[in-house]
């Protein structure tokens, strides 16, 4: 069906013919008769990675093949969302090995973006937990891959933005939990120096992430709150919680009803928001037991929160810098602060080591910032790109809607190898997106 589509950033918005399927045979037929397409799940990447004039939606391809409750192994089609998986596995004492900040992504999206979570420094990214998967290629042929079987296809699919084919089956390991609750600890940091030190001191925590106020200058520069967490054990729960330790959180959601006018977000309102967010924790440290939803998915409680950025949309800018270049982080934060291009939400996290070809994570600090689309923004982000590259960093394709191809190439040393593998399995660039064309990942025809 012809319709207007956009991903989570509401930028860009394009006209697309959206095709759907439920069964393998239908998918095979669709792939055969569609000249060019990109697989698309729930559209929660931010930019243009899953946008193309023709998309094949995976949302009706959402079946579970198996769930081994003893060993914690889950096997499913690619269109199922993490939200649906949690409903099945949590009551049985299992959790996702890795989850990003929204549960409304599909498994196909988790693989295509090779998503990371607050536990990257301990558990790595999503692909580290995949046992094996089947991919339906541009030719219609389905082949199985893993780190040992067709490893080139496996590596290029994890983080490969869907360009190798459609994941028709993925099998991955889950994480054992005693309860659905999280033992959370929040620590306030007065500045950047302190927050980086706190990350180092608390790296034994499974989950860690910091919210950082990038508009503060001077002594308060880099003022933040570090949020740490562990899955709570049964004996850490209150008597009431203990009765049903694996209870699913109740579903209470509110929805952002319309696009806010874009002037609502300005340096003043963002400062006020950041002030309130920081001041809500009156003590230096706060420890409590919370359900997993507000801990992992604070923004999922507000459906369509992206409308808060107005109808012109926003881009999320996420980069990673090596651990030894604190200076780079300072320089980027200073530039953002000087420009006053308010970011509502800035999230800082430490990545552990990762061996990957095209996946985003590598050891270092990663920072994610939202910028409403307005005049001058893209020139400014081009400048930031140069700073990121200067310090040996790179950008996350899942968030990207505007990066230049040379910026991608400079950040990913194995990019040529990736392109080679894509051209082997997707020879005529049949599977392609606006992003893959923009970044020269698929041959321009």
């Amino acid at each position, binding site marked *: 069906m012809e319709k207007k589509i956009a991903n989570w950033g509401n930028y860009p918005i394009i006209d697309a013919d959206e095709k759907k399927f*439920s069964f393998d*045979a239908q998918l095979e037929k669709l792939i055969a008769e569609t000249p060019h397409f990109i697989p698309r799940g729930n559209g929660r990447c931010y930019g243009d990675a899953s946008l193309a004039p023709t998309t094949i939606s995976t949302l009706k391809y959402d079946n*579970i093949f198996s769930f081994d409750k003893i060993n914690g192994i889950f096997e499913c*089609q690619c269109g199922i969302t993490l939200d649906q998986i949690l409903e099945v596995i949590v009551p049985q004492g299992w959790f996702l090995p890795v989850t990003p900040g929204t549960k409304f992504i599909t498994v196909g999206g988790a693989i295509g973006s090779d998503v990371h979570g607050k536990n990257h420094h301990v558990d790595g990214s999503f692909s580290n937990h995949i046992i094996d998967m089947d991919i339906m290629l541009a030719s219609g042929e389905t082949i199985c891959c893993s780190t040992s079987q067709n490893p080139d296809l496996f590596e290029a699919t994890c983080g490969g933005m869907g360009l190798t084919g459609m994941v028709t089956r993925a099998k991955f390991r889950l994480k054992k939990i005693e309860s659905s609750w999280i033992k959370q600890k929040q620590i306030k940091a007065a500045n950047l120096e302190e927050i980086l030190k706190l990350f180092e001191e608390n790296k034994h925590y499974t989950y860690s992430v910091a919210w950082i106020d990038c508009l503060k200058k001077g002594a308060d520069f880099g003022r933040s709150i570090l949020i740490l967490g562990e899955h709570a054990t049964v004996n850490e729960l209150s008597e009431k919680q203990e009765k049903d330790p694996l209870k699913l959180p109740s579903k209470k959601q509110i929805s952002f009803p319309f696009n806010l006018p874009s002037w609502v977000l300005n340096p003043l309102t963002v400062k006020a928001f950041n002030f309130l967010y920081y001041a809500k924790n009156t003590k230096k440290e706060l420890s409590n037991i919370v359900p997993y939803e507000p801990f992992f998915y604070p923004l999922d409680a507000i459906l369509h929160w992206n409308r808060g950025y107005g109808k012109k949309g926003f881009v999320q800018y996420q980069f990673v810098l090596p651990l030894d270049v604190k200076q780079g982080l300072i320089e980027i934060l200073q530039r953002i602060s000087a420009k006053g291009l308010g970011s509502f939400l800035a999230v800082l996290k430490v990545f552990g080591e990762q061996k990957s070809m095209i996946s985003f994570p590598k050891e270092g600090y990663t920072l994610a910032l939202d910028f409403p689309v307005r005049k001058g923004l893209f020139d400014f982000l081009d400048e930031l790109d140069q700073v990121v590259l200067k310090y040996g960093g790179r950008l996350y394709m899942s968030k990207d809607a505007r990066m230049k191809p040379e910026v991608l190439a400079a950040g990913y040393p194995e990019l040529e190898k990736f392109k080679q593998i894509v051209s082997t399995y997707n020879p005529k660039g049949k599977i392609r997106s606006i992003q893959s064309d923009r970044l020269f990942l698929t041959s321009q025809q």
Partner: protein
Amino acid sequence: MPTVLILGASSDIAIAMARKFAANKHNIQLAARKPMDLKPLQSDIAIRYQVSCEVYGFDALAFSTHPSFFESLNPKPDISICVFGVMEDEDAAFENFEITHRMIDTNFTGAVSILNQIAQYYSGQKKGIIVGISSVAGERGRQSKLIYGSTKAAFSAYLAGLRNKLFKDGVHVLSVKPGFVNTRMTENLKLPKPLTAEPAEVANAVYAAVQKKKNTIYVKWMWRWIMLAIKNIPEFQFKKMNL
């Protein structure tokens, strides 16, 4: 745990219905022409909802196989839902009787063939529920849905008659007349959003109607009034209209 049989289980509405009944603790029997397609759905339903789910081969057009198909069901379903149906291009069907014939045989003859079997069994048991997915297109004959509308009109009349016939045996028959539904069947049509239901809405409405033993439901409430208006246009005027 009651068992639900879904005839024509590969459609979007059927899948939504299977999940809805499974989520409300019903064992599921999925019957479709290509049962292999439904293997992933079978495992999904069993794992997600912790109910039993079986898959059966069933071809609406192979009338002679219907008795043995029903014979093979074990256990016999407490609720039988007839979802299958085809909607071909009307111009093509008008010009080519083969297409028309196939529509009639699937939507009407096939449905009557299998539901007669089930109805006889239920009336012997003095219990059971039959649900037929018909269409608002069967409410009044018109040119844009000439053949499809006639098959559904016939099916609606059959369901109403069956309800009447089985009442004394304590068997209930529910007629469902969804308006537009956002499915594969309507993928290439431009449908007005407020009048278009999602498959899950149809499933919810059917589930609720089965609990309340309703006779006839339209999924979106507006359709009842729209069809009432359409049915009340005098024929001398209606025949000149382009509907």
